[in-house]
């Protein structure tokens, strides 16, 4: 696919793929992340590639093990948020009328209320620390931006010929949404899903950092919490503090690069043509004469 000529897309897919791979097969190769040892506060060495924590645990092992949970939460919350946004955004856009007005109002209100304060407050009131409560809380607060985008797209799509002809031929509403509208909006849905995943991972990291995540979970965010609790950075133990944050940033960047390239591929107006030096060739030779 010529799309893959874009170095940004290749970089994005490579980075994201690397972390997904790490999540899936990493734990089989890394040592025990929870194993205490006497080798506390060790800088990176041959035995421990990323050094050890205050309790002598291997940082690299923790990082690898934490990848899986972090990505699970990110993907889970992203997926749930996307599903909600599809139902409300596309559903509202397709239905039109009062239903659309109400759903749109709902989306705008949820959008404008700041997410993290709400998540923090709900999470601490309910003591929601497990994986699934965290996923749910994040998803229920972050679906609104995607819903708005999908609604706008659906509004412009529902008057296209293929939708009108489907309605005229009596196809049922939900079938039209599923088989005509949804497939056409798939690229945007994917793009919004990617945004949701980035948001979910960053939010989860923030929650963990504030101590609102269950300490038994091993995520990148939790690693940062423990590191900060034990004052890793100010003690100079950068090897404990920097890698988890860097992983979050890199994974986020990988996803963002994919989104960026997706945008370039789908939106012809964003195509950049490198300026070519104008060639003044000789006039084309006269047509061949038999």
């Amino acid at each position, binding site marked *: 696919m*010529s799309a893959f000529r874009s170095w940004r897309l290749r970089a994005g897919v490579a980075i994201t793929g690397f972390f997904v791979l790490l999540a899936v097969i990493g734990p089989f190769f890394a040592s025990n992340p929870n194993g205490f040892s006497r080798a506390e506060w060790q800088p990176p060495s041959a035995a421990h590639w990323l050094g050890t924590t205050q309790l002598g645990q291997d940082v690299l092992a923790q990082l690898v093990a934490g990848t899986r949970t972090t990505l699970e939460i990110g993907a889970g919350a992203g997926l749930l948020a996307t599903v909600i946004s599809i139902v409300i955004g596309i559903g509202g856009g397709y239905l039109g009328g009062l239903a659309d007005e109400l759903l749109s109002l709902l989306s705008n209100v949820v959008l404008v209320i700041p997410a993290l304060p709400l998540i923090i407050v709900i999470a601490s009131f309910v003591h929601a620390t497990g994986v699934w409560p965290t996923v749910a809380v994040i998803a229920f607060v972050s679906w609104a931006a995607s819903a708005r985008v999908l609604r706008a797209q659906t509004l412009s799509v529902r008057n296209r010929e293929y939708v009108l002809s489907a309605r005229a031929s009596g196809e049922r509403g939900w079938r039209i949404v599923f088989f005509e509208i949804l497939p056409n909006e798939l690229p945007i849905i994917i793009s919004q899903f990617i945004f949701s995943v980035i948001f979910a991972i960053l939010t989860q990291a923030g929650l963990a950092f504030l101590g609102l995540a269950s300490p038994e979970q091993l995520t990148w965010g939790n690693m940062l919490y423990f590191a900060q609790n034990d004052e890793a950075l100010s003690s100079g133990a950068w090897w404990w503090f920097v890698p988890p944050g860097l992983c979050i940033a890199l994974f986020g960047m990988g996803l963002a690069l994919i989104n960026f390239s997706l945008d370039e591929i789908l939106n012809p107006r964003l195509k950049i*043509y*490198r*300026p*070519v030096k*104008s*060639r*003044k*060739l*000789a*006039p*084309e030779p*006269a*047509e*061949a*004469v*038999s």
Partner: protein
Amino acid sequence: MSGPDVILRAEHVSVEYAGRRPTRAVRDVSLELRRGEVLGIAGESGCGKTTLAYALARLLRPPAQMTGGTVTFTSADGQSVDLSALSGEQLRRFRWAKVSVVFQSAMNSLNPVTTIGRQFGDIFAAHRPDMDHAARERRARELLTLVNIDPERTVCYPHELSGGMRQRVVIAMALALGPELVIMDEPTTALDVLVQREILDEIERLREQLGFSVIFITHDLSLLLELSDRLVIMYAGQIVESAPGELVGKEAAHPYTQALLGSFPDMRGDRRNLHGIAGSPPDLRADQVGCPFAPRCEQVFEPCRSVAPRLLPVPGRADWLAACHKTGGPA
């Protein structure tokens, strides 16, 4: 040097859209526009007429680029300029002052967030720095009056005007600096028929009043028959016929032109059957062998498919050119 007073001369212009297989949108086109004349360029969508217009006005942008030919503009005082040689500040100063463009769909060629008056002002600020604010406002109002729009409307935004009014504003802007040549690319296509008529009459009136030359591009041949002094028909990136306007209306030399004429009704003529043209234009990425119209031509015969016809005068008429084996001179 005696001879017709030529204001614009294009010689062997070719334009290509870059890509893995470049699309050759304009192939070896040469034409001449005489001062005060209306030159009509007609052809179906994709024949290259808009690309040609952009090439003449130096408006091509990547991936489009001119791969051959020259465009020479001769202003009223006799100075000739090679348009393809201009660049940077020179090109910017030349633009609009001598040659201006009226674009398709006026509603999109006006800045939606600025008032009309300010947009006129921008033109003057860029080309007539000695004009002060009051002078710019005055001139803007003059121009609006010229196209029969209430001069109070300088404070309006584009969305506050109707389609026809916007088109007239765009025409007024094109005339702001008193250019010698105005290139009009489908100026009336997006308008309904009545407004179309008004705009065309307006253009005619302005032309008589101010004396500029016009290159008028459209797919609607019927418009050009009454409007143009000379007509050029384009097909697949090439000129297939070039002749005085009223001649083409009466009898066209090229089968494609004949087919075009046969596809719309004449208000006052006899009733007749209308025909479309079967098939579709050739792929402009491929090289052409023989006449590009051959696959669709009803009068095709042996040499058409293998030998490309050259644009040659119809026997007996020096000003009537056709690229056809049937009517042109010996191949």
